[in-house]
């Protein structure tokens, strides 16, 4: 680029991001054909990974971009599974029920958002937890669920086990890709600018005419929808529905862990966090309670010492941007070499919404 040496360069895509875009397409294509070559156990595990990515990306959308930390997101996970059970019981095809369920969860979250989004910070966080606890108790009252005994998505059993496994795998892959694409599109569009403005400073954003509440509501409903789909998919993989398992705050703990470790407020961070969580779970999940202690301790340490997470730190240090959702300003002097002192208030690679 032949930019005038005094004016900063504003760019969105970089050479790395163009390579990354191709890599993403290749990875998705490879994942799509993977079930033909993998064992049944591996297919199940990777399906779980897709669900984790959905959970992390949706919690990140809410907390990292909307500034809304919720510890009650398990309510949407549980409702996603519950509505799928209800719909399948009403005679709807179980695979169709999974998606209808997600849409219903999204619809339910709309009126809820009118109310909950008026709470701030910690009040919102625990307020959502109360909603989750109450919803759990109410679902337990449903005769179909039989309290904590639970029930199953029996109508899935009519499909052959192998075909069912592959179908759920592809559904999870498709859902993950679609949800990530929606989020990516949202963040790159004009709403994205508003979202990042709110993330950085809510009051300032409001003062320049950003529709703060409307934008937050959009993220809230999107997160509810995505997590609802994730809950329904989890039900499809495990068949049984026990309210205690689905409405467990542990799901939110996982989401927080993934996003904190990966990098809160970065698009790639949530995906990286889900991958890290998946690997940790695969290697250490068997050791039980110490594994959970380790997850909690890691979350505490990241929040104290590395609040930007792994990806946020990498991004800051190397100016790497794989899937750019914002623009960034490159100061001309900085464009020449890597080893140069950065100006005190602006690093050479500074993201601007």
């Amino acid at each position: 680029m032949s930019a005038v040496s005094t004016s900063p360069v504003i760019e969105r895509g970089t050479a790395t991001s163009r390579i990354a875009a191709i890599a993403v397409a290749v990875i998705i294509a490879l994942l799509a054909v993977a079930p033909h070559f993998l064992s049944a156990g591996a297919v199940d595990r990777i399906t779980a990974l897709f669900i984790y990515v959905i959970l992390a990306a949706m919690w990140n959308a809410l907390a990292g971009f909307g500034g809304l930390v919720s510890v009650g997101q398990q309510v949407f996970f549980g409702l996603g599974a519950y509505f799928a059970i209800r719909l399948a019981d009403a005679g709807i095809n179980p695979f169709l029920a999974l998606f209808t369920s997600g849409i219903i969860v999204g619809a339910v979250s709309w009126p809820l958002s009118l109310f909950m989004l008026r709470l701030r910070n910690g009040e919102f966080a625990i307020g959502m937890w109360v909603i989750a606890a109450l919803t759990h108790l109410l679902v337990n009252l449903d005769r179909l669920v039989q309290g904590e005994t639970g029930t199953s998505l029996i109508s899935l059993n009519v499909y052959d086990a192998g075909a069912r496994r592959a179908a759920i795998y592809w559904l999870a892959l498709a859902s993950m890709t679609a949800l990530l694409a929606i989020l990516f599109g949202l963040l790159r569009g004009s709403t994205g600018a508003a979202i990042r403005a709110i993330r950085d400073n809510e009051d300032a954003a409001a003062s320049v005419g950003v529709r703060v509440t409307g934008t937050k509501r959009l993220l809230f409903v999107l997160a509810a929808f995505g997590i609802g789909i994730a809950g329904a998919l989890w039900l499809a993989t495990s068949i049984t529905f026990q309210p205690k398992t689905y409405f467990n705050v542990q799901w939110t703990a996982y989401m927080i862990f993934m996003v904190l470790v990966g990098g809160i407020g970065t698009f790639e961070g949530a995906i990286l966090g889900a991958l890290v969580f998946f690997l940790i779970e695969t290697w250490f999940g068997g050791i039980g309670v110490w594994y959970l202690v380790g997850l909690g301790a890691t979350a505490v340490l990241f929040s104290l010492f590395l609040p930007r997470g792994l990806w946020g730190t990498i991004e800051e240090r190397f100016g790497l941007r794989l899937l750019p959702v914002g623009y960034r300003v490159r100061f001309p002097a900085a464009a020449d070499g890597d080893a140069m002192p950065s100006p005190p208030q602006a690093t050479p690679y500074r993201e601007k919404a």
Partner: protein
Amino acid sequence: MSNQIIQGILLGGYYALIACGLSFMFSVMRIINLAHGSLAVFAAFALWWLAARFHISPFVGLLIVLPLMAAIGWVLQRFLLERSARGGALLPILTTFGLAIVIDNLLFEQFGADTRSLAPYIGSLSYDSWEWPGSIYVGKLAVIMFASAVILLGGLQLFLTHTRLGRSIRATSEDPDTAGLVGVDARRANAIAASIAMVTVGLAGAFLGMRSTFDPYAGAPQLLFAFEAAVIGGAGSLWGTLIGGIVLALAQTLGAQVHPQGFLIGGHVAFLIVLFIRLSTSGLGLRGLQRLPTRKPT
């Protein structure tokens, strides 16, 4: 029915005990400590361990556990909350949530999944009751619990309004920077406030253990009760917390009357109704859970 109402009011004393530390910390440091309930359960386990292992009565055990809780509060503020609060309002939520997971699972690792109770270690107090006119039986423990809540809230109020330390904590909660200008050490005031909050948590944990059973994962419901009572109590004096606790307990009692599983549902619904009314009348959201008492008591 009047019997149940009285039981409900007395149970409200417990909720006020567990809520007052949460809202105290919030009003001073603007932090909602998500590990609040887990720390109360930790205190209950500490008392249980002292009683089961060394035959120390829980009331004597408090002499060990309450100073320990105060120390924990100090450490918590200095090493965790202070640091994470610098990263904005959202980070302490994540830090304390992570801490809650660590505490819960360490307790599980140490004590297993069994439910415990302090009731066997306090003799006849756990089931003794007084007969009041109209053949109403009230448990002695419930009355002691309620009286403790009243004394604690009143003592805290007096401390905040009539002592130098209390005034410096109030000044810090109003405006830490200006308080610093007039010579108040905000870091110290915050650490002391956290210690006080943890002492109330320790006391709440003791009563939790005496009046019912607990297990390593009992922290989450305690946190929700504390939060609900504090929000229902709302802005104003510390006495609001007591009213909040009583309202919560009465709603639960009413819920249990309506449906066998309605106890918890009743409490949650009452909380949401109060929240809804408050949000729709003020239009501003909750402006903080509660403010510290101003110069004039009550």
